[in-house]
């Protein structure tokens, strides 16, 4: 029930219930997530295709990824992966052979840890396994480790080095508004985006002269 004095906020979602991916190798998937990373198996469903579309019997199973969130997999009995298994990609899809790594790795999942000790703990667990860390990077705001799970999905484990500031949120909003504007036009480019963003800053600047919450000044 919502009482009229405190209406619910517009933004109501509470994080990831689950993100789901197919697997053709449940054994390795369970070894990677349950045995190496120590993510508990928390749920499974055995079902078949009873809807309008025919599909094979399947198992839908879930790992706890903290915070009440879950990473889930589907295993379809007798279903074979499509495409050239040597091509870049993952269990869900294979991409053209010349697809660059940056594009393939752009689709990934990143899990959050609290601090350096926890990040290094996961690094240790991975490095002692069949799936060692492939890359460890530190930006100004985050430090991350990366590997690919047995299905070819890129997994990042990351910690924030400092909180994102309200100024950065505002800057992001302007950038994305500019992006949407230029992406709707012909041949979008970074130059166009930066020009459009500058226009937006000029348009909005008057509003920012108004009194602001302290952290925005």
């Amino acid at each position, binding site marked *: 029930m919502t009482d009229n004095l405190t209406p619910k906020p517009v933004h109501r979602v509470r994080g990831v219930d689950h993100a789901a991916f197919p697997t053709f190798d449940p054994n390795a998937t369970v070894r990677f997530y349950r045995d190496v990373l120590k993510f508990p198996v928390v749920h499974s469903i*055995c*079902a*078949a*295709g*009873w*809807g*309008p*579309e025919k599909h094979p*019997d399947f198992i*839908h199973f879930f790992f706890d990824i903290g915070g009440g969130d879950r990473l889930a997999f589907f295993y379809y009995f007798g279903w074979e992966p499509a495409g050239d298994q040597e091509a870049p990609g993952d269990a869900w899809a294979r991409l053209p052979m010349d697809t660059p790594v940056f594009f393939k790795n752009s689709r990934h999942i990143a899990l959050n840890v609290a601090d350096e000790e926890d990040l290094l703990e996961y690094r240790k667990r991975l490095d002692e396994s069949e799936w060692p860390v492939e890359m460890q990077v530190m930006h100004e705001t985050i430090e991350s480790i990366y590997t690919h799970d047995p299905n070819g999905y890129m997994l990042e484990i990351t910690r924030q080095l400092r909180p994102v500031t309200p100024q950065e949120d505002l800057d992001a909003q302007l950038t994305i508004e500019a992006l949407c504007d230029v992406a709707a036009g012909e041949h979008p480019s970074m130059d166009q985006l930066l020009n459009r963003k500058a226009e937006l800053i000029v348009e909005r600047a008057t509003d920012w002269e108004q009194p602001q919450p302290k952290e925005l000044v």
Partner: protein
Amino acid sequence: MSIRRIGLIVPSSNVTVETELPQLLGRAGNVFSFHSSRMRLHAVTPEELRAMNAQRERCVLELGDAGVDAVLYACLVAIMAMGPGHHRDAEFRIAEQLGTGGSEAKVLSSAGSLTRALTDIRASRVALVMPYLEPLARQVVAYLEAEGFVIPQWAALEVADNAAVGCIPGDRVMAAARSLDLTGVDALVLSCCVQMPSLDLIQQAEDEFGLPVLSAATAGAYSLLRALELPVDIPGAGSLLRADSPVTV
């Protein structure tokens, strides 16, 4: 008129559910077909009941394949022996399994059906006749008490072998009912078990004792009709199943 497919998950030694439910629903004014899947069970003991519950996933798959409109998990004590409120968990897991595969079947259990029927007729003080050994009977009493009912009187016939439960004669069931003090009782559950036969006794007992008489079977039929949004109007099996009968003077 479309045929409504009813899926039944029953203990392997059960012969009563598939007898009484078709008899009841056959008088309900719609056409039903019945499709069973069985879980091995011989003795109604906590160990065998736990082993039986582990077979549920296979049964759900079999009934999902049959494209049923509703599934009734028809073993009341298997649910109740798992602890208070378990019918909600069991129904949820079956519904989740079916729903994940794209089935839109309604999901019920005998235990959930009984509590729903008792709630719908606004019974709060309820007497029970059960076939179970006393420890299991006490679990059934505690389960219904945890659901908010008061159980002032109950009788347990102490039959453990489930095949033997299916052969308990009606006069023994009625004798157990007559042994209870039904003063101040709102409803009598005459066969709080889907295997102990009692369908022929329900109307007779209701007439004799002057109070609503239900069984696991009549509560199951009632809840199936409600779940399928069909009228509840079955003659000769107690007032519960005449809930939607036209009122006659």
